């Protein structure tokens, strides 16, 4: 009897102590004590857990490496695919920009009809400046038709086959274009050269030519339509003793990066050679 009452009293005291401790803990009064008490335990558990994880990683690493290698290969393949897709898209974007500029140019000159062509090659000989385009007589191209880009004059069709044509650039040493300067309205002849440099010749001495003047086709001679932009005067060379002034021209077209060009198919060059007297003719 006595023993059972002792245990019940002991149990009651224990319960009160536990309740008291819980109340103190909930009230935050045991925090310093628990910090001191649990810190070594936490440290010990951390140490043990880290060692366990290290051993687990070590034991499972071969499987992970194989899986990572496979994943790496998959990701590398994905990166390669995406990079090639980016290159394709960049190329398409560049082509779209060029085509958009050409469409704008064509809209700005509704009097002309155009056929677009890609530049597929250059002349094998380094002495001449010709390009080969992928449109020919089947597409309505004829010899002498002017070739332009959105930036300005490129040249004219020199030879045609059914599916391709050869275009003489205005930078060719044998090329000459009748031009007009703006705003002075002075006229002259634009000639190419071996180095691809464009020069103006036959400009009258009395004409006022300034650096920055625009160079446009004059339409004289019947080889090119009038008012196609060619470039700007970069440098004027005027000697009092010469008959004519000369000048260097900075072209608006980058002839080293020709990709897509427009051929003006409703322009027919005029052959004025019969008008020139030939030796021996009556």
């Amino acid at each position, binding site marked *: 009897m006595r023993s059972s009452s002792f245990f019940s009293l002991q149990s009651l005291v224990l319960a009160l102590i536990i309740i008291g401790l819980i109340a103190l803990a909930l009230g935050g009064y045991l925090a310093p004590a628990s910090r001191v008490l649990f810190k070594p335990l936490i440290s010990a558990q951390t140490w043990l857990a880290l060692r366990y994880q290290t051993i687990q990683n070590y034991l499972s690493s071969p499987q992970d490496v194989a899986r990572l290698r496979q994943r790496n290969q998959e990701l590398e393949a994905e990166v390669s695919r995406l990079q090639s897709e980016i290159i394709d898209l960049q190329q398409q974007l560049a082509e779209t920009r060029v085509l958009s500029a050409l469409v704008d140019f064509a809209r700005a000159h509704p009097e002309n009809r155009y056929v677009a062509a890609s530049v597929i090659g*250059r*002349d*094998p000989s*380094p*002495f001449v400046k010709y390009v080969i385009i992928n449109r020919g007589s089947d597409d309505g191209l004829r010899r002498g038709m002017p070739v332009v880009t959105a930036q300005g004059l490129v040249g004219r069709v020199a*030879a045609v086959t059914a599916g391709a044509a050869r275009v003489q650039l205005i930078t060719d*040493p*044998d090329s000459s274009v009748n031009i007009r300067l703006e705003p002075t309205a002075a006229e002259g002849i634009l000639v190419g050269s071996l180095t691809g440099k464009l020069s103006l010749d036959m400009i009258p001495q009395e004409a006022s030519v300034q650096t920055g003047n625009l160079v446009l086709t004059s339409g004289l001679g019947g080889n090119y339509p009038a008012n196609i932009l060619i470039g700007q005067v970069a440098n004027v060379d005027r000697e009092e003793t010469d008959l004519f002034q000369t000048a260097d021209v900075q072209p608006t077209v980058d002839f080293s990066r020709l990709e897509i060009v427009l051929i003006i198919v409703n322009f027919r060059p005029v052959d004025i050679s019969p008008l020139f007297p030939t030796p021996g003719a009556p």
Partner: protein
Amino acid sequence: MAFFLAFPILSGLIILQTALVSHMRLLQGAADLILVALIAWAIQKPVRTAWSWGILAGLLVGYVSAIPFGVILVGYLLAVALAVILRQRVWQLPILAMLIATFFGTLLVHLVEILALRLVDTPLPFWEAINLVTLPSILLNLVLALPMYALFNDLANWLYPQPLEM
């Protein structure tokens, strides 16, 4: 067989030349794949079709190029002749013969082209053409000469297998 191979090989080289090699300029000069291939073929000892390759290449390039028709044919045939002569004279050192033929072959072809262009009244300053076009082209052709020689040497050995000496 060797003659018929000329069609695909030379056509492929012309496509490469117009689409790629002509864009790669050194000053104003460019390598001439077809010329170097012709020389590399003509310099091979067992080859007997060098002249027919030269005629075919001259006609094909003459058709593609804006240079007056026939001029490139003449230039290529002169280069083939030079290569054949060198093959007979410098037979113990074919690589040296290849380099000499490439140097003088390029010079000959360019001189013929300059002469022809000047005859048709194209304003082409002679020394400017030599300095800016011919000399850089010779350098580029010399760079191509050895790999092209190796390629055509393999082709010649495949087409004309040499009997084993016992």
